[in-house]
């Protein structure tokens, strides 16, 4: 009887463990497969792949700098727009909002995470792009002559992409910042208030206490932004150039994969695209795990009622 129970318990452990192993194998497999499929490009170009700006599939010249540039530029700009807004939302929802409004408002802001990327893209093409274009045309002459505001008046450009990205990452960053603020001990705020702090000063104390987690939350949003494909592909203009102008049509790493992967007939072209994917994989991996570590450091132990995985919250909430 006892033996039978032991055997079945062992079966449970090994059986479910086997499925858990599948998950680990997938992650390792992604890294390995991408490395294997990128070898031609890695061997031919080496590190120069990332510093060269010439991308010409016809002549077999592949330099990925414009894509890195476009990805980083649009994501950082998105971060600058979305970061403050996300923190503001989190502060409002966790510190200022009347109890009754909290759940519905949180739900509505998190709806932004539920809307599919392709719908953002569609909205981007038909609503945002014309709006950005007319905004550009309405700028005074002295502004458009600056390098920052240069670019053809087409509407598909870095700025459009950054706006779409910013909208898309706000819900991620804000819901995790909220989680972080929730795990700041009440005593911190009470202490500040007892010393005569105004509401904002008490909030500042809480923000200061949770700063590492908030940085993590914003980084997590950044990691998301790097990998957004469809919405960006549809509004960035898909032109491989690295320029400072906000109105310059540009290109991102994810977008070039989406556009050229199916048409890549040459092995080298395919491998070059996979190498871009490999770097995207490694970079998002590092950013994600780093930011989760920061968030986890703040939220563990301090909030016994919080879920064991605060970082998984936005999915559950969307």
């Amino acid at each position, binding site marked *: 009887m006892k033996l039978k129970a032991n055997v*079945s318990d062992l079966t*449970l452990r090994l059986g*479910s*463990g086997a*499925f*858990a*192993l*599948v*998950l*680990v194998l*997938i*992650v390792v*497999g*992604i890294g390995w*497969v*991408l490395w294997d*499929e990128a070898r031609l490009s890695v061997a031919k170009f080496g590190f120069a792949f990332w510093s060269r700006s010439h991308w010409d599939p016809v002549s077999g010249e592949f330099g990925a700098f414009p894509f890195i540039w476009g990805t980083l530029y649009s994501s950082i700009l998105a971060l600058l727009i979305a970061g403050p*807004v996300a923190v*503001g*939302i989190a502060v*409002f929802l966790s*510190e200022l909002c009347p109890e009754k409004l909290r759940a519905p408002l949180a*739900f*509505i*802001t998190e*709806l*932004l995470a*539920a*809307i*599919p*990327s*392709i*719908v953002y893209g*569609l909205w981007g*093409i*038909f*609503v945002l792009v014309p709006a950005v274009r007319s905004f550009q045309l309405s700028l005074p002459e002295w502004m458009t002559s600056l390098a920052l505001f240069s670019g053809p008046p087409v509407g598909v450009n870095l700025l459009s992409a950054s706006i779409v990205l910013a909208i898309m990452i706000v819900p991620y960053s804000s819901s995790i910042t909220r989680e972080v603020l929730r795990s700041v001990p009440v005593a911190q705020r009470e202490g500040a208030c007892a010393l005569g702090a*105004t*509401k904002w000063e008490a*909030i500042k104390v809480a923000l200061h206490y949770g700063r590492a987690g908030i940085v993590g939350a914003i980084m997590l949003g950044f*990691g998301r932004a790097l*990998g957004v*494909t*469809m919405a960006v592909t549809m509004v960035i203009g898909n032109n491989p150039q690295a320029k400072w102008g906000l109105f310059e049509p540009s290109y991102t790493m*994810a977008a070039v*994969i*989406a556009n050229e*992967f*199916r048409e890549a007939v040459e092995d080298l072209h395919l491998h070059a695209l996979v190498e871009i994917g490999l770097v*995207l*994989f490694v970079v*998002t*991996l590092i950013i*994600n*795990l780093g930011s*989760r570590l920061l968030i986890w450091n703040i939220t563990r132990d301090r909030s016994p009622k919080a879920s*064991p995985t605060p970082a*998984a919250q936005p*999915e*559950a909430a969307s």
Partner: protein
Amino acid sequence: MTFHNARRRVTSVVMTGLCTFSVVLALIPVVMILTFVISKGAGSINWAFFTEMPKPVGETGGGMANAILGTLTLCGLAAIFAVPTGVLSGLYVAEYHGTRFASIVRFAADALNGVPSIVIGIFVYAIAVLPFKQFSALAGGLALGVMMIPMIMRTTEELLRLVPVSLKEGALALGASHTRTVFTVILPAALPGILTGIILAFARIAGETAPLLFTSFNNRFWSTDVTQPIGSLTVQIYTYAIAPYEDWHRQAWAGALVLVVLVLTCSLIARLATRRLKRMHVGA
């Protein structure tokens, strides 16, 4: 002194005001996007959209029946791949948490959750399209399944750990084996929540486009063969949106409306279910 205090109070009002304003700022795009999708979509949607096949280029009319079927097929295949793996690995992590392997698995799930969907597309292309030299619904389903696994694993783990320890102890005290306890007590207690998690994961992958571009590809015809390329709402919307035809744009909006309604309904159901579950657990 009073001047200093006044300044502090003003700062406080301004800053809290800015925080309130940021919520308004986030509500603007939600409202804008939803109104656009609903108004444009509602004007373009009709019965033919659900029942008819795409017309050749140049002819107006037709629908996306094949793409709707395709999206459902792909999501169904994804669920077949992901539900057993996700639930059982979640079970492992919840039941044997604290072991080294459990933390590795959790780490892998976090990592996989953050991998851009386009990268998963490349991965599945390399393992399920290249060897057979054939885009297929199976490959598309696999790509979506890979995205679904960590989501399901996470909810399963969370919900299994929410099951009161007393239930488990009760079963064990009655002499049930660990396996029996898991399958007759713990899993049933968490089942509604796990189903909710699966619905949410479903809603998220139904809107994915990037991993399908080079796995399930696209297909303008009715297809039920999972070894052949298959259309999907998202890829179809993409194709139509970037094409220069007015009527295709109209259909893209209609498709977006269907997609948004699908995704939001799932989210809302899951949301309401979660709230009820939480109340049940608090009451228990």
